[in-house]
């Protein structure tokens, strides 16, 4: 499992999405799940960069790796920022999603899109690192 490392800044998001797209292409995902994976990875990486690193003035890296296990693509993002479980946050519910733009709160949509777009999303804190795991079923 080859690991790629990216500086933990918003300038890296383009390359982070490109990595996710390459991995998706290698395992033959079609256009829609490839986009969904890139979107999910972008959302989680953005949170790590903005809240894990930038907000606390920490410099860090985002490590990405992938492997195929039992017919599933597992893409993993690791970072050494403070523990943060994206699943611990309350997601927008049906009522939130039907509110007009004037009434909307601005947060929470990224995690919602992440969970909604991949077949499975898992979080764990292991060996001092956050591990965000994106699982896509292979066709």
């Amino acid at each position, binding site marked *: 499992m080859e690991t790629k490392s990216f500086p933990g800044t*918003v*300038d890296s*998001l*383009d390359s982070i*999405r490109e990595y996710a797209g390459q991995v998706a292409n290698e395992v033959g995902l079609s*256009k*829609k799940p490839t*986009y969904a994976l*890139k*979107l999910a990875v*972008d*959302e989680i990486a*953005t949170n790590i*960069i*903005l809240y894990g690193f930038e907000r606390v003035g920490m410099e860090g890296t985002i490590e990405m790796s992938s492997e195929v296990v039992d017919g599933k693509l597992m893409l993993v993002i690791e970072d050494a920022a403070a523990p943060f479980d994206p699943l611990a946050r309350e997601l*927008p519910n049906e009522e939130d*999603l*039907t*509110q*007009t*733009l*004037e009434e*909307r709160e*601005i947060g929470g*949509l*990224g995690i*919602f*899109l992440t969970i*909604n777009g991949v077949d499975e999303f898992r979080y764990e804190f292991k060996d001092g690192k956050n591990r965000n795991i994106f699982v896509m079923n292979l066709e």
Partner: protein
Amino acid sequence: MAFTIQTVVEEQTAKMTLAGELDSLSARVFQTEIEKIANQPINELVLFMEKLDFMSSAGLRVLIFSKQKVGSHLSIYIVKAQELILDTLEKTGLHHSVNIVDEYPVL
């Protein structure tokens, strides 16, 4: 692909042509464009998205921001957005609050 945005203001309509990928880095550029028109008497914001290939929630937040900043009288038109971007707008319910059209002016 690098994000680009071009803005033209004609009377009470602001037209913005977006291309490339809209993530949390490029959303800052988009938001700055919205801030520039926020104090003008704009009634319609028309976003041409045919060449926009990617939009994260950071782009959605700028849409929400524009309505909250300019005011509830603002009508937002999204013109020729790609299928996967429309999918994001629908999943998040934002399609109820904007006008999704194939061309502008709407016939």
